[in-house]
């Protein structure tokens, strides 16, 4: 998907592709994923992230970009939340690439006081004027969207206007294991788009509709995405909250979210085909790897006993 096309062109192109798909074999899907080494959270990240976005040939000039980190719990210094330096580096990089507006937005699933959570996670300290740049997606204006071809029991879903009006939504997850789904990465991070102000804390409607299926459905509702995974220090074991820090020393990025998530799984020593939401969303037939090779950076994340079958 090119980001240099406008909304009308995108809709026309999608309609054309669907019409074509109706009378021919599905288009072969290819994706590009970049892996870069980043051993520590340091000032070098600003240059690293900018190089990574340039490598991915993103055209965001004049676009409204929304960065969606993963904010979960109040534990300063822990590895639960996306590190604020990664978010700030992305903010600066998208600005440098000419984005008209770059906002940060998140809707945590358990804790209601999002600004206090962001403060405890170091966002206020790291990102100047953070509160002005931030939207609490749990409390944002909402619109109801129809789930066109649901995999889950969801038929419609309220989503925040900040998300729906963005030109590019950037998932900035932490690389973590997840005790229900196996791994939480770019796609699972989008649970945080669903407004707690409507559905509550936790957003239990997604659990009842099927966790893996809901993750896949939400992915279909936001077509213009980019993913940058904070895998510098991830979480292994009983993630996404009670696990242990796991230094993986990488940032992983790309425009095809399932491709990025699948690549991260391989780095973590997890078989992507075992991840339910990746099976439902579908992974590209070909992933063009740039930067580091998966084999060079693979570091197996400890898995809970019931997830041992997920090991690659």
């Amino acid at each position, binding site marked *: 998907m090119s980001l240099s096309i406008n909304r009308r062109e995108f809709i026309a192109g999608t309609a054309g592709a669907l019409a074509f798909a109706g009378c021919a074999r599905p288009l072969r899907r290819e994706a590009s994923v970049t892996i870069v080494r980043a051993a520590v959270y340091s000032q070098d990240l600003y240059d690293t992230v900018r190089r990574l976005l340039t490598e991915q040939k993103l055209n965001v000039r004049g676009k409204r970009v929304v960065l969606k980190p993963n904010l979960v719990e109040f534990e300063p210094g822990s590895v639960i939340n996306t590190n604020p330096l990664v978010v700030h580096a992305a903010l600066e990089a998208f600005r440098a690439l000419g984005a008209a507006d770059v906002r940060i937005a998140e809707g945590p699933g358990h804790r209601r*006081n999002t600004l206090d959570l962001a403060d405890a996670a170091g966002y206020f300290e790291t990102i100047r004027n953070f509160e002005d740049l931030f939207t609490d997606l749990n409390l944002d204006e909402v619109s109801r969207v129809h789930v066109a071809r649901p995999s889950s029991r969801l038929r419609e879903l309220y989503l925040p206007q900040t998300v729906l009006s963005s030109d590019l939504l950037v998932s900035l997850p932490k690389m973590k294991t997840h005790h229900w789904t196996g791994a939480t990465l770019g796609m699972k991070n989008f649970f945080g788009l669903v407004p707690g102000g*409507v559905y*509550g804390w936790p957003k239990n409607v997604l659990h009842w509709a099927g966790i893996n299926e809901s993750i896949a459905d939400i992915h279909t509702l936001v077509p213009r995405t980019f993913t940058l995974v904070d895998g510098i220090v991830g979480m292994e074991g009983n993630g996404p909250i009670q696990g242990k820090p796991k230094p993986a020393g990488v940032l992983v990025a790309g425009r095809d979210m399932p491709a990025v998530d699948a690549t991260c799984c391989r780095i973590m020593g997890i078989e992507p085909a075992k991840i339910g939401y990746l099976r439902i969303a579908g992974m590209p037939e070909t992933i063009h790897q740039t930067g580091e090779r998966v084999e060079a950076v693979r570091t197996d994340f400890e898995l809970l006993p019931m997830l041992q079958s997920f090991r690659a």
Partner: protein
Amino acid sequence: MDDGRGNTDNDVDPAAPQTHAALVNALAAAQNPDGGWPYCRERHGRKGTSWTEPTVLALLALGPQGPVSARGFQWLRSRQQPDGGWTPQPGVDETTWVTSLVALLPSQSIGIENSHRALGWILAQMGTNSTFWYRLRESLLGSHGAEENPGWPWFPGTAAWVTPTALAIMALEKAAKAQMTDEIRRRIGQGRQFLITRRCADGGWNHGSSRALGYDGTSYPETTGAALLALRGVPNLDRSIAAAERHWRECRGAEGAAWLKLGLLAQGKKVDAWPPHSAPRNIRDTALCLLADHAQQGANVFVD
């Protein structure tokens, strides 16, 4: 100079007033022209949509008198749904947990008949995993996912959780003061039992998942405070009160501090000055802090 809530003279946000009078003024000024209140503070001259939760909390904090409250009650009355409940905000069609909050307001201000309809809606709700059909299904499957003690969900058709259950119990307690019925008594008892069974190993409460996959969950300040409010009068809460006092010392954020203060005061505990880092950052938390201050003065609207 530190103001006791984590702000110093050098970094006090002028939009985050600290004194009681300033909090009241800030709350009144945040009212939307339609009479409701948004969650978030005005930014760049733009106010947000009115939501039910901050509107109810603002009205509880400001009291029923005066033109500001009159406009707020008018907005709320206009928002009641045909099923007797309230939606979270006008752009949402589904009636939810916020109905329990509305039911905490004085009946006269909403209308006696309207309050009865709200009560009927609350009594008709329960977590899906406590419904007859779900329990039957679990029984036939030999599974153990059913919840014996029905609590209340955030959103219809989902499971029960701590905060909506605590608020529903408080709403029913208030209704019971006018007229206790067997159904109200039963649901309060079941709701309290639900809270007891969802208590974390550390004595407090989180959102409602005290143990998963063999691992203990840890409690939160805000849910521990709300549960203690709903469990006022229930014996053997020493461990929970100790957890709340521990949270109070370590709490970061106005929401958690306000609910802890309300809960500890309801349990007859003395609460001193606000902990550091507890300045309210949105309208809801501003109202909650005022309500906690009122409770310290002897008027706890959640349980009195």
